[in-house]
């Protein structure tokens, strides 16, 4: 962060302790000053941290050398205009009493704090709706606490009625109990999901309807929660790579790359040039895949099945290419800390170029049907519109935020892997409606192809893995014949890569938005804590606001257009 900003904050928060970790400034504040600090960071025009990226907590119960309070909460904020990344950290003296909620500042904090409450059992005062979110309502205990046994699985025997939350939401929207019961204005409650083809996964969307208009909406997620973060605490850093495949499974490689990039940037590993270009080519390729899935599904929701085939045929063909490259169609597991699992195979350029040509053909066929089609326009334009300010407040990132006219893209604002060397555009929309979200994705696919073609021309030869015995596994030929290499191989497999002690946050522009990883390392081969900041969690958190006042059919379209991926949403 720039020195002036730090200076401003040091004057504004004299009680805070400032440290700089990577490109993040961390302010340690006392518990009673937390809300005040956050409020100033949000509202002070010089600071303007309009984007709340994530809220999480750390349980220091088993952290080596730790004294004092067991829990701390961490708010990760971003000033997207000036590329300032900030974490505000506060110790929590008593988790039952908790800290003051930031929901009044950023609505995004609503779901984020619910998650912290669910996983760590930290209370948030003045939170409007503090319930469990990822674990079911009958769950006992708080899974991410260090004294919670990972084997303590619990079954939900009865679904949550959600009667309280939906009535509360109705009351907020001005529908009182008498209107609900009156025979002329009676409200109908309708569950979409959890198992419904239109929800593209297991999500429960409870709506209160007046005719076909949605009066209030409450969503229940967590049906696909499988404890990614808890599992990650029991695995070595490299063993987590296959687990990240299962976050956003439509673009598994983007998760792989985002994850290893986060660990590498903390360890100060500079990967080889070729590996960097490989990661750019592959992440853009997977971005196209992700958008293809999203748009194809979105158009099916609209009733345009033909488009689905034009887009999905190309995606299907891409899977053949991906399986030739990585050895699996869906779960790539193609990165390792320090480089790539393997190099490209011989002749990949031809395959890639053919793939891109086919995708271009598929997209233009699809656009020929939808781009100037009045049905599509009337179905999508000015439907579920979300202005930029609201989208930011709800923590939107990625194509959905850009569709609302906010030109924030990490590839532009905080470039990594030589992104500043490529010539490409960041498409932004104007209204933030479903139309914009779709068209931004269409445009982004063309831009990604531009980047891939430039990167393919520039990609240098050389190794794809760094030469460092503490990180890279020795080559197999050496392992078979050389005792020293064998010993180093054993050490790396048994102990894992030793990551220095510390806490850090690193982010990556995934297909859906900012995919962040918040790590706490105790200096061993396994992360002490690994928290994912999934982009679609926050989009789902703003879903009710987008669909209230719209029709049921539009809610389905809207859900498709924000591209909810259950694996990432529920972790």
């Amino acid at each position, binding site marked *: 962060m720039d020195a002036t900003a730090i200076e401003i904050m040091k004057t504004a928060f004299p009680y805070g302790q400032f440290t700089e970790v990577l490109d993040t400034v961390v302010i340690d504040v006392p518990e009673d000053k937390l809300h005040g600090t956050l409020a100033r960071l949000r509202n002070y025009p010089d600071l303007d941290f309009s984007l709340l990226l994530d809220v999480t907590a750390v349980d220091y119960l088993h952290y080596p050398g730790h004294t004092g309070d067991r829990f701390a909460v961490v708010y990760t904020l971003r000033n997207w205009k000036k590329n300032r990344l900030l974490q505000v950290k506060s110790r929590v003296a008593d988790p039952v009493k908790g800290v003051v909620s930031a929901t009044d500042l950023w609505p995004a904090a609503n779901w984020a704090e619910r998650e912290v409450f669910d996983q760590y059992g930290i209370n948030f005062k003045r939170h409007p709706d503090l319930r469990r979110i990822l674990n079911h309502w009958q769950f006992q205990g708080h899974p991410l606490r260090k004294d919670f046994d990972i084997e303590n699985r619990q079954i939900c025997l009865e679904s949550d009625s959600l009667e309280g939350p939906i009535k509360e939401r109705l009351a907020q929207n001005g529908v009182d109990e008498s209107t609900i019961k009156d025979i002329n204005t009676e409200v109908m409650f309708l569950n979409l999901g959890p198992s419904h083809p239109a929800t593209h996964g297991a999500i429960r969307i409870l709506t209160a309807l007046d005719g076909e208009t949605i009066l209030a909406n409450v969503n229940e997620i967590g049906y696909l929660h499988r404890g990614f973060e808890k599992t990650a605490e029991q695995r070595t850093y490299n063993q987590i790579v296959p687990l990240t495949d299962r976050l956003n499974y439509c673009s598994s490689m983007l998760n792989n790359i985002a994850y290893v990039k986060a660990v590498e940037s903390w360890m100060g590993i500079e990967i080889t040039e070729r590996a960097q270009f490989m990661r750019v080519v592959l992440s853009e390729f997977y971005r196209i895949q992700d958008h293809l899935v999203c748009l194809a599904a979105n158009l099916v929701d609209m009733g345009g099945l033909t488009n689905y085939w034009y887009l999905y045929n190309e995606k299907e063909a891409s899977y053949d290419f991906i399986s030739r490259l990585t050895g699996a169609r869906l779960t790539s597991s193609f990165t390792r800390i320090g480089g790539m699992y393997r190099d490209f195979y011989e002749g990949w350029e031809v395959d890639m170029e053919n793939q891109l040509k086919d995708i271009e053909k598929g997209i233009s066929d699809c656009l*020929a049907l939808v781009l100037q089609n009045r049905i599509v326009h009337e179905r999508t334009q000015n439907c579920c519109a979300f202005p930029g300010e609201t989208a930011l407040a709800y923590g939107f990132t990625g194509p959905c935020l850009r569709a609302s006219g906010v030109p924030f893209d990490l590839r532009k604002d905080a470039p990594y892997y030589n992104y500043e060397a490529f010539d490409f555009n960041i498409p932004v929309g104007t209204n933030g409606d479903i139309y914009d979200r779709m068209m931004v994705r269409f445009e982004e696919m063309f831009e990604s192809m531009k980047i891939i073609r430039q990167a393919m021309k520039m990609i240098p030869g050389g190794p794809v893995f760094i030469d460092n015995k503490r990180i890279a596994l020795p080559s197999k030929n050496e392992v078979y014949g050389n005792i020293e290499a064998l010993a180093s191989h054993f050490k790396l497999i048994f102990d894992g890569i030793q990551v220095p002690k510390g806490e850090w946050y690193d982010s990556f522009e995934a297909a859906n938005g900012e995919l962040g990883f918040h790590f706490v390392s105790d200096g061993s081969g396994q992360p002490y804590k690994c928290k994912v900041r999934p982009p679609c969690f926050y989009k789902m958190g703003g879903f009710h606001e987008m669909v209230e006042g719209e029709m049921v059919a539009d809610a389905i379209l809207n859900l498709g257009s924000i591209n909810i991926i259950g694996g990432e949403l529920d972790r």
Partner: protein
Amino acid sequence: MSAKVKVVKRKGDTLPEKLYLVEVLKGMKTSFGHFWRNLRDNSRLYVRHYPEQQPEITPRWRGRHRLTTHEDGSIKCVACFMCQTNCPSRCIMIEAGERLDDRDEKLPVRFDIDLLECIYCGYCVEACPKDAIRMDTGIFSLVEHNREKMLVGLDELAATPGAFTEDDYQKRGL
């Protein structure tokens, strides 16, 4: 160089678009183009006549595992537990025993892989210091009637042959 912001133009204001039929007929041209092409020659359709027509499986493919053997048929595995340790889904269970053929000190007396737990990430192959476990059988479809049968043991793993020549397998890269 570097990224520039570009505002996406909104469509829908022109007369042909408002007239609806003009643009829809244009769209129909594309659909019918596909239709005639596929009617005349359906060889380019993205349809695979599975199972008669099998998908392309390359040496990099992570299929079902097998245990490799020396020329004399004895197992290469020395029960060092590397694959079991590196397995992110904890699906390999090894029991070591004494080896009497003078090649090494140990051999596995039990080597079970729970294929229902396995996530086919290839970490066991990466961890093996003896090239004793490979995922080159080309088997990608596993169906059984009960869970117990999905636990494959030493004999079955050692009996399955590889699907590629040694040269092709090595070319996949390390």
